[in-house]
């Protein structure tokens, strides 16, 4: 039984790491209908930039510079790529995001190289032993960071003027435009926020995996989380992340041995499919009502 809880808690902590990635997707999708497949590559870029800056400057400055890079990327993306594509069908925006993914990884790796780099920002990764339970200090710290990040985002969206403008854009582009909210700027701000989320995810995953191309594959981990939670929902991303993290780890450990193992990749999709059969827009996704 102890082992069960250990797996469960570890799974939940992993789930937070998934939520971090899914959060970026949800933010952008909500604001601009772009299914941003480049989210993982943005994390890669952030990781590469951070490692690159860390060799010549202290951590805080490197973080600031990384976020500056992400801001630059956000503005360039919105104004060069997505401005001409306003109001195109979602699949085309999705394809543009794939193109963006190639661009981002190509540019990042051209500047900072393709070899695997270690990223150590001084967060300890030791076992914390609570009675019979083994937990990771790193995971716990990142759980707290993620919670703080989400809290910050909620405050930003609820309390600030910009945040409210962003929510207005997300609700209805045309209505927002008509009350004088500059659409492209609002999008750019959303992309900057997604960039910051990507940076945090990049640090969290990059410390584990090293900063290298495979860091961009964390986007794959976010996909089942997204459909389970609802593509455009921030609370959905977080809750679904926890469910997926716990579910896939429990499944791998307790069902895996009977079927040959390795079921971790598709189990979350099965969970999501089952759930979507009853609620086709995920836990908190916005329901689209068809009218003939």
């Amino acid at each position: 039984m102890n082992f069960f809880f250990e797996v469960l808690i570890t799974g939940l902590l992993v789930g937070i790491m998934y939520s971090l990635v899914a959060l970026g997707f949800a933010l952008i999708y909500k604001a601009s209908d772009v299914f941003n497949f480049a989210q993982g590559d943005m994390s890669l870029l952030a990781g590469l930039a951070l490692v690159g800056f860390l060799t010549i400057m202290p951590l805080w400055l490197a973080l600031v510079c990384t976020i500056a890079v992400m801001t630059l990327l956000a503005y360039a993306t919105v104004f060069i790529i997505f401005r001409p594509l306003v109001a195109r069908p979602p699949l085309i925006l999705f394809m543009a995001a794939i193109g963006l993914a190639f661009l981002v990884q190509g540019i990042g790796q051209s500047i900072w190289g393709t070899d695997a780099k270690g990223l150590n920002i001084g967060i300890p990764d030791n076992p914390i032993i609570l009675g019979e339970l083994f937990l990771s200090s790193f995971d716990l710290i990142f759980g707290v960071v993620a919670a703080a990040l989400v809290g910050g985002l909620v405050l930003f969206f609820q309390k600030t003027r910009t945040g409210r403008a962003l929510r207005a854009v997300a609700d209805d582009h045309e209505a927002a435009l008509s009350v004088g909210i500059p659409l492209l700027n609002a999008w750019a701000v959303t992309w900057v926020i997604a960039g910051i989320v990507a940076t945090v995810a990049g640090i969290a995953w990059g410390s584990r995996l090293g900063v290298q191309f495979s860091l961009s594959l964390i986007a794959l981990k976010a996909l089942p989380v997204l459909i389970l939670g609802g593509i455009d929902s921030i609370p959905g991303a977080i809750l679904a992340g926890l469910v997926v993290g716990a579910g896939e780890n429990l499944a791998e450990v307790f069902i895996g041995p009977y079927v040959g193992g390795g079921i971790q990749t598709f189990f979350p999709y099965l969970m999501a499919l089952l759930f979507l059969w009853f609620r086709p827009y995920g836990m908190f996704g916005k329901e689209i009502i068809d009218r003939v």
Partner: protein
Amino acid sequence: MLYRECGNFKDNYAKDMAIFPIPLDRWGLGIMLVFAFLVIPFTASDYWLSSIMIPFYCFSLAALGLNFLTGYAGQVSLGHAAFMAVGAYSSLILYGRYGIPLVPSILGGGIVSAIVGSIFGIPSLRIKGFYLAVSTLAAQFIIEWVLTHWKWVSGGVFGTIDVPNLYIFGALLDTPLKKYYLVLCIVALMITFGKNLVRGQLGRNWMAIRDMDVAAEIIGVSLFRYKLIAFAVSSFYAGVAGALITITYYGAANIEEFNLFLSFHLLGMIIIGGMGTILGSFLGAGFMVLLPIFINQSMLTFMERVPSNLRANSEAIVFGGLIVFFLIVEPYGMARLWHTIKEKMRLWPFPY
């Protein structure tokens, strides 16, 4: 001028129902066919035949399959690489283990793939849009897992099936030229079939579902039936394409070839090429498959002095840049570009 019609002169049903109502299209297609069947095989080098044309045809076929599903029936799938894998493995099992002749084996691979595809198509009855797209990734991962873990499939410790010597009607299929003809014949037949499929009732029902499935249901199109048929037909094409490319190009069925990225690439092909058009599948396959090769080769020419590391990465930049560029210029795909040109030519020099 070339296309000039100056009015509607269709005076019987046969003319109205012609596949290519414009004469020049017919000639153009005829010239292309002659080119593909007679000119390319005797002028192109083995390199062009075996590593440019064959993969190009196979991926075009797979893209066409996905186009039926996404472009015509409006259901997005990100599991098509896995359906290709099903076709590849099952056709090799049929051919190598049970000794069924080559062409029936390839088609058999397609049929197995169609069955698998229609099972994974069931969620489309409830789920739409990106939710459906991401759900179809389940097909990708589950099929990959089954093919790696089910030892009977690969029949050995290496997890792959090697392609044995290929005989067709008793003749050994060994040179690139013979393989090229095999691929070309099957692809040409399947395109003709596909073109007629989408012109008929089936295609019209698909398009009705794509444009608005609620409305389609109200006018009596059975969603269950036509969505699943779309999945089946589409995976049939994917399965045949997977079998063909494995037999004529890869030389061994290995699940790693049919990974997730291929699924994304296939979707990319039809978006860049043009959704809901047959021509678009070819243009898109050309873009996604051949362009990286050309970029790679031209990089060697243009950027010889540049460090190879930078060169390799700038390929990704050029490729990504071109995707974005094409989407901005013509969001509805390269086929639409051609369509626009054609429409202009039909009216030239007297546009309204």
